[in-house]
């Protein structure tokens, strides 16, 4: 039995994982989704700090490989910011992020009746990552000449109302973990920092939230799902949580079985050695 388990075809595990992740998507189990204190606090940071007409940067810094985790986050958090009546400026420092910027711009215009150029602006990709953020801090208006669609920025009323990055109330960064945005942006006086990131990047960013350098911090698809529930707009992340939980349960089972198998094999080997 033990030998069979140890030599099990890896493809059986793959099939089990596909079943564990697929069935709950088609037939939701309805597992409870408790809201963590961290997500509640992050929600409250936007709820209490953002007022009508406040300027908010939203950094759309992810590519298709992070879509499953970060697109639901962007939708949930961005909609929350828009519902507060804030003026939103979308920025993008990752080459593949512009597609999500365009998609999110459409969502804001359709669902919140935002007027492009008046209370919403999308800025194009800017190369250099940390250096580009440093330019936002030092000379925000000098960094950009045209918007995401190639139109001259001076033609938009919102652009003309902004003097520098100090005019902004909050920077919401939806990105695949790296802290290269936080180092420069934390130099802007009075700018609140808020971050949504992928689960694998949580350990990099968590200390920066614990230390109070960021006022909000949500992690992975589960963070997005909790945020969707809090904002009363269940979306793709909340719908995937049953599948996510079943996948995790299966991995835990694999880890336990693997360790039990390993320990028993060692014990059997030791016994055999003694007998010799």
């Amino acid at each position: 039995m033990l030998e069979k388990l140890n030599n099990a075809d890896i493809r059986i595990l793959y099939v089990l994982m596909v079943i564990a992740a697929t069935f709950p998507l088609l037939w939701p189990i309805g597992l409870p989704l408790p809201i963590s204190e961290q997500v509640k606090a992050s929600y409250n940071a936007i709820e209490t700090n953002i007022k009508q007409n406040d300027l908010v940067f939203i950094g759309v810094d992810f590519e298709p490989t992070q879509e499953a985790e970060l697109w639901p986050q962007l939708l949930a958090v961005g909609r929350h910011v828009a519902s507060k009546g804030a003026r939103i400026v979308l920025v993008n420092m990752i080459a593949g992020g512009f597609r999500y910027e365009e998609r999110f711009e459409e969502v804001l215009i359709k669902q919140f009746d935002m007027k492009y150029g008046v209370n919403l602006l999308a800025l194009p990709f800017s190369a250099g990552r940390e250096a580009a953020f440093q330019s936002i801090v030092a000379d925000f208006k000098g960094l950009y000449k045209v918007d995401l669609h190639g139109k001259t920025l001076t033609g938009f009323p919102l652009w003309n109302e902004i003097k520098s990055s100090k005019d902004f109330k909050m920077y919401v960064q939806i990105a695949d973990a790296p802290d290269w945005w936080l180092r420069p942006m934390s130099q802007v006086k009075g700018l609140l920092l808020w971050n949504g990131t992928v689960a694998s990047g949580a350990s990099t960013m968590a200390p920066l939230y614990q230390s109070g350098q960021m006022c909000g911090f949500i992690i992975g698809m589960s963070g997005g799902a909790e945020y969707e529930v809090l904002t009363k707009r269940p979306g793709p992340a909340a719908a995937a949580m049953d599948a996510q939980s079943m996948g995790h349960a299966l991995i835990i089972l694999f880890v336990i079985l693997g360790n039990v198998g390993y320990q028993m094999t060692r014990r059997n080997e030791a016994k055999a050695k003694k007998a010799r």
Partner: protein
Amino acid sequence: MNETIGIWIGAFLTLGLFSWMYKENAWFRIVENVFVGASLGHLAVTGYQNVMDIAWKPAITGKYIMWLPLIGGFMLFSRWFKKYTWISRVPMGFLVGTTAAVVMNGAIKAQLIEQAAATMMKLTSINNIIFVVLTIAATTYFLFTLQSKQTGPIVNLGKYAMMIAFGATFGQTVMSRISLFTGRMQFLLFQWLKLTPGGG
């Protein structure tokens, strides 16, 4: 129509990658190469556009300072010629120096001073005590000038603290990967096959 074609291509590529789970095959290799090629192509086009928009166009329209990064970038190509490799060291040195300066500027405040300050907390709760003790223990592990005999059990405590942290990181990575898988399954089931939750 365009969207439907895009969805079918997406499904073809996703299933091609999943086919590796059965065994390595030609379909998987084709998809893998398409992914690498498309990523590099995208990177090349974006890089070209950046050079044109940020440096070349301003340089030829009177912003002469932009010739500096253009010439510097051009000098980097000298690495291809053994005899002239030394030329590339000038822009390379500039890149390393400016990057270090930009990073250091923010890192000292954001990742050193504020992080150290965050560990100076009142020892009024169990959480805070654990936090401070484990921070000291983990930091002690990196005192390479002391032998483990001198630092005693605190180094072992630091090791265990780091192991727990690595375990948590591994758990988060698993969560990330399963999210990716779930996202792809959502795409295949709901966008490609047009099924609806409930099995319909």
